[in-house]
């Protein structure tokens, strides 16, 4: 009952015309930028982050959330029509693109939009019930728990996003080291500034994000461009009633899977899509046809994608630990706005929290009733050739970097991270865990130092405290699993 009351309170905020407008702008701009080739949610959010600086607090967070799910929808549209996935909609490429090849682009886009709506609605209730409860539980967390939870997050994210523990971990560690640049809060010593005074306050988040995900991504796309889609522009959106009925069970299965996986450390949309797709392959009535371009293959993963995107806000807002790179960027945006996500956020800013939760559902409605019917116009973005687009994206990267501090020197730092990010990508290192390391690094150091101070330098505190001990146990299991997998692969290839 209290939850419903809180939700009503939230809708009051979200439906204020100003917030409604920010939500609509966020969704629309997010979709448009997300559609652009080579720009996934991470790049889209970092590109558009500067737009929110001058907005009021709740408006800016609502707009950012809108940008996030708009970008996700845009991403799945480009996956379905062009088979151009970013990290976030790999699964939509399989059946979605197969449907495009069959000339059913419109149906696939409607299915994705409508399933996202179902996923978002289910996740809304999970979010409203679970986030406050988890926030209460998180009050029991001390420095030791935070330290081990962050480490668990690193391991899970490394594993999920890159599929290779070593590569992902390397990126997390580099991110942590980059987070060390600047003045140490405890001693006042300037660390790793390499004699540059502009680094005294640390490296700007926007420079890293735009460099590694904006500039590096478009440089990579320049190497292999000219991708022609069989998509003709002809589009029939509305499904028949029998098709419509087929969407729902699949979307519901996906919503549940997505809601659960969105909560896990390292979880989030990507892993949820794969899980939902696998579930559909096992339990769907049409399981034998999945992969050939049928509705179920699109519906389940789209619902899971959306649901996980929503529930992944839960650990961020209730514990204060982002569990995937996109949430790390969101956390940074919260902090820029003076809000520290964590157990105290919901009690201290109930209007902000419930307003944001309600606005997510409003955003879902926008996506369904605005973007789905208008998608044929959005798709004209694809008609712009890449050689026109990419100077424009570069320009937006420059403006975005510059307007953080009105400092032209920041552009050099962005350029440096562009080259670094491109090098990482060419070395087959996915830079997205770097973002998580960068945001969580300072928090990890602070908590590790504090935990060791309290235990007088005794490391056993991380194992003897029960919650922390469980986290350490999971990390150990993951490491052992990876070693066993590597060893068996070796022995098999030698046999």
């Amino acid at each position: 009952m209290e939850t419903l009351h809180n939700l009503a309170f939230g809708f009051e905020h979200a439906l204020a015309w100003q917030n409604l407008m920010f939500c609509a702008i966020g969704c629309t701009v997010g979709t448009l930028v997300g559609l652009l080739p080579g720009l996934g949610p991470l790049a889209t959010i970092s590109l558009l982050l500067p737009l929110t600086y001058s907005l009021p607090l709740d408006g800016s967070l609502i707009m950012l959330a809108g940008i996030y799910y708009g970008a996700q929808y845009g991403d799945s549209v480009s996956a379905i029509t062009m088979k151009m996935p970013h990290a976030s909609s790999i699964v939509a490429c399989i059946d979605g693109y197969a449907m495009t090849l069959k000339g059913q682009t419109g149906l696939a886009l409607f299915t994705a939009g409508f399933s996202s709506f179902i996923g978002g609605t289910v996740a809304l209730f999970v979010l409203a019930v679970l986030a406050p409860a988890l926030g209460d539980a998180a009050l029991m967390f001390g420095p030791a728990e935070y330290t081990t939870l962050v480490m668990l997050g690193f391991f899970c994210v490394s594993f999920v996003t890159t599929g290779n523990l070593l590569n992902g971990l390397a990126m997390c560690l580099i991110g942590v080291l980059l987070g060390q640049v600047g003045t140490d809060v405890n001693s006042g010593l300037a660390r790793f500034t390499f004699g540059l005074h502009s680094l005294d306050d640390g490296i700007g988040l926007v420079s890293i994000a735009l460099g590694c995900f904006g500039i590096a991504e478009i440089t990579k796309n320049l190497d292999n461009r000219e991708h022609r889609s069989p998509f003709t522009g002809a589009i029939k959106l509305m499904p028949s009633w029998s098709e419509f009925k087929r969407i729902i069970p699949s979307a519901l299965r996906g919503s549940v899977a997505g809601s659960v996986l969105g909560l896990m450390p390292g979880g989030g949309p990507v892993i949820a899509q794969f899980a939902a797709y696998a579930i559909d392959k096992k339990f769907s009535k049409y399981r034998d046809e999945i992969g050939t371009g049928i509705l179920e293959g699109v519906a389940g993963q789209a619902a899971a994608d959306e649901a996980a995107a929503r529930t992944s806000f839960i650990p961020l807002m209730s514990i204060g630990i982002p569990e995937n790179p996109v949430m790390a960027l969101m956390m940074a945006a919260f902090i820029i706005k003076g809000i520290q996500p964590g157990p105290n956020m919901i009690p201290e800013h109930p209007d902000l929290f419930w307003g944001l939760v309600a606005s997510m559902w409003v955003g879902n409605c926008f996506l369904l009733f605005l973007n789905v019917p208008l998608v044929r116009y959005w798709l004209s973005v694809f008609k712009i050739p890449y050689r026109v687009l990419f100077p424009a994206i570069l320009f937006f990267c420059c403006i975005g970097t510059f307007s953080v501090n009105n400092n032209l020197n920041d552009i050099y730092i962005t350029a440096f991270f562009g080259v670094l990010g491109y090098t990482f990508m060419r070395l087959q290192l996915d830079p997205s865990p770097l973002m998580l390391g960068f945001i969580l690094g300072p928090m990890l150091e602070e908590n590790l130092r504090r935990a060791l101070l309290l235990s007088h330098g005794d490391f056993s505190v991380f194992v003897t405290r029960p919650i922390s001990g469980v986290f350490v146990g999971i990390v150990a299991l993951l490491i052992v699993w990876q070693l066993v997998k590597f060893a068996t692969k070796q022995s098999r290839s030698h046999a």
Partner: protein
Amino acid sequence: MLNNRDLLRGVCLIGIALVFGVPALQYPIGDLARAGPGMFPLFVSSLLLLVGIATVIRSRFVERSPMTFSVKNVGLILGSLVAFAVLSRLVNMTLGIIALVFCAAAAAPPYSVIRNLQIAAVLIAIAYAFQRLFGLELNLY
């Protein structure tokens, strides 16, 4: 070494670990109960060093694959960003945008002066709109 991406990856990781690890040695380390500013970075860069070494070792067991790296595209993109920043400081941002477009466009042939001028004109108009609507401090003139 350029024809062995996995080895190169390990070497790069070791390099980055040293860039951070060596200076960290010069900061006060402290002890475990009272960690100094050098302790944590030293710890993290040592871990990264281990990951780098493990990557080098693993590269001996997997099949070699070459690494592609387009120096030309990277150079042009880098050049266009630097040109934008330098010219925006010395002259104004309008010239910076024109330089950015003309330099970057070379990475995507065929090169067309007229198209570049059109792109630059649109971007300058967008910058002007940003300046007016969002209050960004862009020195366009």
